[in-house]
């Protein structure tokens, strides 16, 4: 075998180490984030799931008790109030903020003057924390100093507006404040949707003599129907996670009348030292989110595929 042959039979020369390192760089850079996200999403969830199946009370312990925590959670009157509130609140909050948001979007869409200024006004609550909003509204609801006092000062002396301090109506105080905060968000998304509708469609309808009302009902709103669903899904998410707003506005009261699941989790874990049951409640929150988001994600993927198929 000549030297020549030998050289030829040698496998392709190894790539220089710099190049090999170079091709590994993306993975090395991404690695820490991947690990962190994996831990955050899967390990943390699994961990809390495990705690929810354990006999943890003041500190996490790992004696397995099966579904006991879930049983006692669902037997608890306060949890009952919490998820009833969640359903009630979600319904009004979503419908209310979408209705107001849509109205504002349509109003602004009428080529009004100073559009940017109107938009800025309706959206600013989103920049502010729920803590700030909740605190300020709790003052407005205060019967001695707030809206009630104002109207009575006008001479309507038996006017009553003490939402936040009445256990039957406090949930409406949360709803009103929530709608106030979130309508601008719905407006922004609806407006973006209305603006993205093909103007030729609108022009065609106008030439056919359709009234503005008909154009909205028959052309514009059906076209932006997916946005309605997107807004609703996002609002449901907010509703399920509602914590700050209630913490600042009513603190879950009066009594326990405005307890929400998120408030309940916090209370069990950090005030009452019932970590196991608190974890069970947290898992129920996650389950509620999954019930909403999993079908929605499938629907979004399905729609994209369909669109891609048509395109």
């Amino acid at each position, binding site marked *: 075998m000549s030297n020549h042959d030998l050289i030829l039979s040698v496998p392709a020369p190894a790539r220089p180490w710099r190049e090999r390192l170079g091709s590994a760089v993306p993975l090395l850079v991404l690695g820490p984030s991947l690990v962190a996200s994996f831990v955050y999403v899967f390990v943390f969830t699994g961990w*809390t799931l495990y*705690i929810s199946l354990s006999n943890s009370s003041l500190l996490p312990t790992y004696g397995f008790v099966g579904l006991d925590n879930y049983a006692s959670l669902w037997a608890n009157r306060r949890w009952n109030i919490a998820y009833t509130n969640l359903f009630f609140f979600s319904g009004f909050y979503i419908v209310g903020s979408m209705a107001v948001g849509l109205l504002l979007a349509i109003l602004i869409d009428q080529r009004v003057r100073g559009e940017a200024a109107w938009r800025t006004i309706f959206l600013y609550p989103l920049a502010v924390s729920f803590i700030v909003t909740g605190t300020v509204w709790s003052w407005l609801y205060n019967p001695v100093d707030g809206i009630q006092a104002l109207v009575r000062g006008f001479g309507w002396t038996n006017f009553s507006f003490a939402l936040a301090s009445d256990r039957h109506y406090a949930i409406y105080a949360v709803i009103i404040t929530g709608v*106030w905060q979130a309508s601008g968000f719905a407006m922004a998304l609806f407006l973006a949707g209305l603006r993205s509708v093909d103007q030729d469609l609108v022009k065609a309808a106008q030439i056919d003599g359709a009234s503005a009302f008909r154009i909205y009902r028959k052309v514009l709103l059906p076209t932006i129907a997916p946005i309605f669903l997107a807004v609703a899904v996002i609002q449901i998410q907010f509703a399920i996670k509602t914590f700050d707003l209630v913490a600042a506005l009513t603190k879950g009261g009066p009594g326990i009348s405005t307890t929400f699941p998120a408030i309940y989790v916090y209370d069990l874990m950090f005030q009452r030292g019932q970590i196991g049951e608190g974890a069970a409640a947290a898992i129920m929150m996650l389950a509620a989110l999954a019930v909403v988001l999993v079908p929605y994600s499938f629907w979004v993927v399905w729609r994209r595929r369909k669109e891609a198929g048509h395109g």
Partner: protein
Amino acid sequence: MADVSLDQSLDHRAATVAARRHFLTRFVIYGLLVIFAAIYLIPLLVVVLNSFRDQQEIARNGLISLPRSFRLEAWGQAWSSYCIGGTCEGMQRNFYNSLKMTIPATIISTSVGAMNGYILSKWRFRGSEALFTCMLLGVFIPGQISLMPWAFILGNLGLSNSVYGLVLIHVIQGISFTTLFCRNYYVSIPDDLIKAARIDGAGFWRIFRKIILPLSSPILIVTVIWQFTGIWNEYLFGVVFTSGQQQPITAALVALTASGTNVRAYDVMSAAVLIGALPPLLIYLFGGKYFVRGLTQGAIK
């Protein structure tokens, strides 16, 4: 001749009816807008005015009333001398805590997100889409799920009751958001640009520095605004993992307004609320366009 004038007068009448109708519609549109604007602005106005009113005057005339007194002291008190739970230092420490938490967490999570987005859009490898989907799940996990694990981890790292612990939490939590934002933006940068650069011998970092980064300012602004307002306004982790002097401003505001004295110091509390609301409000006013863009992008994608 007569016919023509009749036609004209009919036209004229139709025109006036149309004009009247047009005017009426415009009136209704602007009227509704003004009513809603009032509903949105009055709470803010009430707080601003009350922060300059005299406490006794508020007690006498109610919260919602035109100011009949003017003083600046409430701001000073809220900033540096009002008592919350025994310590009389106002909100300044909590304000700085929020800054110390928000600025590093925003910078780190945005930088990491930009790198991740760059890799997941321009250096795809087998399985990278699946990994991206897994990272996305982080966006939806409610904070309550991670409370116990974080308590354990922060305790073991010696970061409980510390602003740095909150920085860690917000960085890890924020990565899913920032990666999502940046990745979806970088996808729209043509791959041919990257290919051409690679043929010219540019590597991973050079392409990022010379091509991606100069094109990134819109998405980086959106991401920074989103992260800053989100982290500044966050309450749950702040109230769970810090106490007293270590609390960020949101948690301190709740403690302040809950501290039940007989006379409610609405003037000082109003100023305190505004101090807590001001940084994100200013960002919103000056970067409104980007704020809205982040909102709609974060929502629809």
